C-alpha cells in the first residue's frame, strides 16, 4: 500500500480515489480527482495552473529546497524489516512533519511580510497626500494634530413655518 502523489496538483492520492492513466510509453500518470484528470486531458501544463503545487514551487510561493525534504525520499530497494528501526522511524515522522510545516509557514510569512511593509508606507503616503479631503491646509497649518474638524450644522429660527432640518 502506497500513497501516491497526483501528477497534476501533487496532492496525496488515498486508496480508493482517483484515476491512473498508463501511456503507451509505459509512463504512469496518477490523478487525485476528475478535476486534475480533465485538466490533464486538456493538455494544460500544471506549471501554469495557479492552484497546483508545481506552480507554487516554480514561482517561489512555497518552499522549494530544504533539508526536511531529504527525509522523505522514495527508496527502490526493499529493506528487511527491523522492529527497532521501524519504531524509531515511527517516532521521528511526526516531529519531522512538524518542523517541515513550521518552515513552510515561515517561508510564506516571510514572503508576505514585504507586502505588509509596502502597505504601511502606502497608507502613510495616502494619509499625507489626501489629508486635504478632510482637513483644510490652512487649518492643518494652525493645528498640526490630526483631530478632524467637526461639521457645523446651522439651524434657522427666523421662520414660523416648519422647514425640514438637515444635518
Amino acid at each position: 500500500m502506497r500513497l501516491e502523489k497526483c501528477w497534476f496538483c501533487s496532492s496525496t492520492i488515498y486508496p480508493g480515489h482517483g484515476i491512473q492513466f498508463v501511456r503507451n510509453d509505459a509512463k504512469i500518470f496518477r490523478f487525485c480527482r476528475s478535476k486534475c484528470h480533465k485538466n490533464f486531458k486538456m493538455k494544460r501544463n500544471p506549471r501554469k495552473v495557479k492552484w497546483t503545487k508545481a506552480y507554487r514551487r516554480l514561482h517561489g510561493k512555497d518552499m522549494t529546497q530544504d533539508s526536511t525534504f531529504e527525509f522523505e525520499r522514495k527508496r527502490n530497494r526493499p529493506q528487511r524489516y527491523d522492529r527497532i528501526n521501524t519504531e524509531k522511524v515511527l517516532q521521528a515522522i511526526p516531529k519531522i512533519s512538524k518542523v517541515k510545516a513550521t518552515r513552510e509557514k515561515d517561508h510564506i510569512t516571510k514572503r508576505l511580510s514585504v507586502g505588509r511593509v509596502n502597505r504601511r508606507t502606502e497608507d502613510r503616503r495616502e494619509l499625507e497626500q489626501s489629508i486635504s479631503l478632510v482637513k483644510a491646509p490652512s487649518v492643518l497649518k494652525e493645528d498640526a494634530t490630526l483631530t478632524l474638524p467637526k461639521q457645523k450644522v446651522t439651524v434657522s429660527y427666523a421662520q414660523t413655518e416648519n422647514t425640514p432640518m438637515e444635518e
Partner: protein
Amino acid sequence: MVQFNFKGITVVPSGKEMVDIILSRTQRQTPTVVHKGYAINRLRQFYMRKVRFTQQNFHEKLSAIVDEFPRLEGIHPFYSDLLHVLYNKDHYKLALGQVNTARNLISKVAKDYVRLLKYGDSLYRCKCLKVAALGRMCTVIKRIGPSLAYLEQVRQHMARLPSIDPNMRTILICGYPNVGKSSFMNKITRADVDVQPYAFTTKSLFVGHTDYNYLRYQVIDTPGILDRPFEDRNIIEMCSITALAHLRSAVLFFLDISGSCGYTVAQQAALFHSIKSLFLNKPLMIVCNKIDLQQLNALSEDDKRLVDEMKAEALKTLPIGGDPNAEQQVLVTMSTLTDEGVINVRNTACERILDQRVEIKMKSKKINDCLNRFHVAMPKPRDGKERPVCIPQQVSEQRAKDREVEKEKEKRKLEKDLENENGGAGVYSASLKKHYLLANDEWKEDIIPEIIDGHNVADFMDPDILERLEELEREEGFRLAGEEGDDFEIDGDNMTPEEREALNEIRKRKKALIQEHRIKKSTAESRPIVPRKFDKDRQFTTERMGRQLSGLGLDPSKAIERVRSRSVSRGRKRERSVAADGAGDDGMEIDNDGKGSNKRLRLRSVSRSRSRSRAPVEEVIPGEGFKDKEQKVKAIKLGKKSVKKRNKDARKGEADRVILNMMPKHLFSGKRGIGKTSRR
C-alpha cells in the same frame, strides 16, 4: 519432389465450378464501370483487360493442375506402377493432356480476341467481342469437364495412398487371402488393419512401422494374392504384385499350414512357385502361421515335401557363407492368436534385411571411401589381472546420503498436509510469514505500518534517522531564535489610532465621491446635461457650501456672505433688507432649501400669475381636440419625448441647428487604432 506423398495436390474444380470462379473473379477484380462516352481507346483497354484477365486466370489454374499431378516417368517405378494399376496410365495421361490443350486453346482464343478488340469502334462492339471471347473460353472448359472430374477423383484417391518410402528398410507380407497377414501386422505395428473372416478384407496396401535395435522398419501389408495367370489378376492383386516387384524389401511369405484359410498347402505352394520370380535378390522368409491349429512336424508327407521345396528356394536367397542356423532364418513358425513366435519372426526378418543392406553397401564403391576412416580398436589385455569397476569412497558415501535424503523427503510434512489437517482449502490460511528471515524471530508476526499521517513509512526508513532528526531540531532552534529578532523590526512602524481614523475618513470620502460619480454616470442618459449655473436640482446652495467648508475646518460665514451679496444684487432685492437685519449678529442663518425660497417669493409677490389656478395637466379641456385623458397623456408624453432629446443636445428647438464646434478635434486628427483613414 513428391516422391511418395501425394497429399499436396490442390483440389481440381469441376468444369462448371471453374468457370464460375473465374468469371466472378473477373467481375470483381477488374473495373466495372464504363460509359459509351469514353474515349475509344479507353473502351478498348477496358474490354481487353477483361479478356486478358480471364485468360490469365484460366492459365494459372490449368497450369497448376498440370504441374502438380505427378508425371509417371518422374516418380519411383513402384509408384508409377501403382498408379497405373489403380488409375490406368493411359487414361491419366490423356486427361492431363486434355487439360494442357485446353490451356493452349484458351490462350489462343484470348490472343485472337484481343487483336480484334484493337479495332472495335464502339462500346457495343467491344462488349460483344469480350462476351464472345469469354464464352469461347468457357466452352473449352466445359468440354474438358469429364477429364477434370476424373482428375479430381484420382487426386482424392492418391491423397489416401499410404506413404511408402521405397528406400527405407521394408518388410513385405504376402500370401493367400486369410492366412493371417493383417493380424501379424497389427501385432508388430500400431497399424489398425481390418481383420475379418472373409477373403480380400485388405483391399489395398497398408503401411506400419516397427522398431528393432533402434532402427525403424516399414511393414507393408498386402491384399491376398490368388494363384491365377498374370493377365487375369484384378486391381487389388495387382497392387500387391506391384509392391512385390518394385520394393526392395524382405518378403515374408505367409503359409497357413492348417488350411483354415480355405486353401490347401498345395495351392499355396503352387502360388509360391508362380511368383517366386518376384523374390529375386530379396531376403525371403517362409512364415508358417496358425501353428496353434496345426503343428509343423504334424504335417502330412506331401505337405512337408512342398514346404521343404519352398524352404530350399528360400535358402537360395541367403547370403553365401551364412550362419549355421540358416534353417531357422528361413523357415519360421508362429501363431498370431497365441503370440507364439511373432516377435521372433520380426526379429529374424529385421536381421535379414540389415544383413542384406550392409552387404550391398560393402559391395558398392562408396564404402571404400569411408572404410579407411573406420577403425574399431580392440585393446588386447596386457595380462590376466582382473580390474573391476572402481568407485571412490566419497562418491559411494554421497550416494548413500542422497538416498537417505530422498527417503526423508518422503517423510517430510508438506504444506499441503498441514492445510488438510487444519480444515482444508477454505478454512486454513497458510501463514506466509513463517519462513521470513529476520534478525530476530520474534518479529515475524509483527504488523508493519505502511502509512502514517498521509506519509509512506517506507520513504522515511533510514538507520540513522534519529541522529538526523536531532540535527534538524537543533537547526530549527537556531533558526527560530534568529527569526525572533527580525519580527520586532517590522512591527515598529505602526500608525496611531488618530492617524488610522483620519485615513479611514479619507477613504470614506473618496468612496463617497466615487459612488456619486457612478450614480451620475449611470443616470446620464436620461438626465439633461445642464451646466451648473442653471442648477435644476438646486443642490448648489450656500448651505451646502457652508457645510462642506465647515467640515474641512474652515469658517464658511464670510464665503456665504460674499456669495449671498452677489446673488442678491441680481434680483432678490426684497430679500436683502430682511437678510441685512439679522445677518452678521448671531451667525444663524436662514436655512431653507431652494424650493422654500421660491415659495416665499411667490407668496410675497403681489402680482399673482394665472398659473396658481391652473388645472392639472391631464385634464381634458374640450377645445383642445383630445378624445379622452389617455390620449392627452400620450400626446403629452410624445411631445416631451422629442423635447428631451433636443434638450440633451442643448438645442433651443426644432429649428436650432447650431453646431458649436464645426471641426471637433477627435474626428479630424489622429491615427486610427485599426482601419484606414482615407475619409474624414
